[in-house]
């Protein structure tokens, strides 16, 4: 599904290398977690995969279903099935959440040559999916993320994911700023989308989220590289001993 090879990335307008050769393969239907200390490059990787300006790929490649992600415009990556749940979802005053989502869903469908959803079809679908995430009608009407609490913003991300039905979901610290109940709700949302085909890359600081979203593989990232990979037990090791031991071990 996702195949990252020897990915090197620097900031576009600074001489600062952030990713220094990332190798990572996520198979279809798998859930991979990436953990790592602050500044290790986790978020940068999610941005580079989704096409955020400001980064320069100096070497390496990232393929999704065999097509070169890095050469595509962000909207084309989305239409091809990539989704990034933002660590800090952006507030967009003046654009209604519903308008935004319908535009997004139909833009993707159009790009893929599928029929666009009618207003009624869209409404029916979003109501069902919003209900499961405890998103009320008022949140759907309000401008995108404006005045949303931290938890509401994250739930709104998951709602977008549910509506857009991507193949490859990247969750960038979706657990940050959430209380236990909100985290459970978000995790349920994610688990509800696990259908054996859809793949996930879950970036997190804490093992806690992984109690709710069971990963197949856990990677530890440090200083722009994946330094260790293992099973779910690796996350527990981090939880108990922190990163220091692991980093020492691989140094």
């Amino acid at each position, binding site marked *: 599904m996702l195949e990252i090879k020897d990915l090197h990335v620097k900031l576009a307008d600074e001489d600062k290398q952030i990713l220094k050769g990332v190798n990572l393969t996520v198979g279809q239907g798998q859930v991979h977690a990436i953990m790592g200390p602050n500044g290790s490059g986790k978020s940068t990787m999610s941005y580079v995969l989704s096409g*955020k300006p400001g980064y320069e790929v100096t070497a390496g490649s990232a393929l999704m279903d065999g097509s070169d992600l890095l050469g595509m415009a*962000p909207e084309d990556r*989305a239409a091809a099935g990539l989704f990034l749940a933002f660590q800090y979802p*952006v507030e*967009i005053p*003046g*654009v209604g959440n519903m308008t935004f989502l319908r535009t997004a*869903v139909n833009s*993707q469908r159009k790009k893929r040559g599928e029929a666009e959803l009618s207003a009624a079809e869209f409404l029916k679908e979003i109501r069902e999916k919003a209900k499961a995430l405890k998103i009320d009608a008022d949140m759907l009407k309000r*401008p995108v993320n404006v005045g949303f609490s931290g938890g509401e913003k994250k739930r709104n991300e998951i709602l977008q994911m549910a509506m857009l039905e991507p193949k490859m979901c990247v969750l960038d610290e979706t657990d940050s700023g959430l209380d236990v109940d909100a985290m459970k709700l978000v995790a349920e949302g994610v688990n509800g989308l696990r259908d054996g085909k859809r793949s996930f890359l879950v970036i997190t600081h804490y093992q806690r989220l992984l109690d709710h979203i069971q990963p197949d593989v856990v990677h530890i990232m440090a200083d722009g590289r994946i330094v260790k990979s293992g099973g779910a037990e690796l996350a527990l090791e981090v939880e108990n001993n922190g990163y220091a031991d692991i980093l020492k071990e691989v140094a």
Partner: protein
Amino acid sequence: MALAKIKQDAMQERLATLNMPKGAAWAMAARNDAVARLAKAGLPGRRDEYWKYTDPSSLVQTVAVPAAPFATDESPVFGQIDRLKIVFRDGVFDASASDDLSMEGIEIERLSDAVQMDIHWAKELYGVLEKNGQDPVARPLATLNTGFATDGVVIRVTGRPSKPVSLIYLHNQETSDAILHHVIRVEKGAALTLLENGPAAARFSKVLEVDVAEHGSFHHIRAQGRDHERRAVTHMFGRLGSDSLFKSFTLTANGVMTRNEVVLELTGDNGVANVAGAALGDGEFHHDDTVFITHDAVGCKSRQVFKKVLRNGATGVFQGKILVKSGAQKTDGYQISQALLLDGDSQFLAKPELEIYADDVICSHGSTSGEIDDDAMFYLRSRGVPEGIAQDLLTRAFLAEVIEEIDDPVIADDIQSRLESWLQRRG
């Protein structure tokens, strides 16, 4: 101070091309007074401070620059609204296209008829509010208009007419040069909604004098024509009595040169004056909103909200002033002007001013100019929204606040649909 020779010459040249329409003594007195005032003030020039950001030469020169009428298959603005239509074609009243001018609660006459009457209420207003509005800043193009306007409407509102009055300015001739002048008196407790739309001419000079008596209300919505090459200088002079309401909104999409001046004076306590505008320009587009609101009574509110979307080298100008006179306590004044620059070639020039001589007032002003927010753009694109559509969404979002200034939802929808089609057409 004597007028500089270069200004003298320019004015003489311009006046030589104009004929003063004949009328009753009061009208001729007002026109001759205007010409006398003009002889002192001269026409605006590039060096005038008030024209620092806008070159007046194409508005002043003797012959209008030709402008091709814009062919469109879109439905006309306000087409869905039940209204009393008054049509001017290239500045000439078109009786066959206009409705019957009679309606309950309102008296409507053509200016060219009213000025023939020896006794007419319009004597108290024609050129009077314009003249009041010359201090402290001269507005010679309005004075020229008072002197030479060929027609217009004279409206006295005594009740609450059942539908809006709609002035429609059609433009058919490439070289038309129109000067219209309207006078409106909203009597005590009366209410009028005035709609204006259309380019009017290759070059259009328009003065609107509005006197709103106590407890009266005046709503004004205008859509200036889309003709790319048209030029316009418009002035709106308003005088507000106590507890009166004055609300004006202008949409300007296209037009190579537009200068819209608004001069309002709150003369009675607890008056409310709101002026707003949305301007959309692509390429050869220069749009100037110049607003001067004077608070001269207690407890009045004024609000200015202006937004411009500019691209491909378009220029937007905003000069907005709130003057609070010494007795005007409890004034609440607000002013915001914002531009969204869709590329690096466009520019926005803003000069917000507050001048306050009372000590118990709230006045605020803000002005911003910026590009589309990168983070919002990336967020939308990351969800699959193509760049162009994302830009449109964010542009609409930028304009949403100013559309909210329109009270009537049907009119607001109509204006909104014009914005949409401009965005889709990209020009």
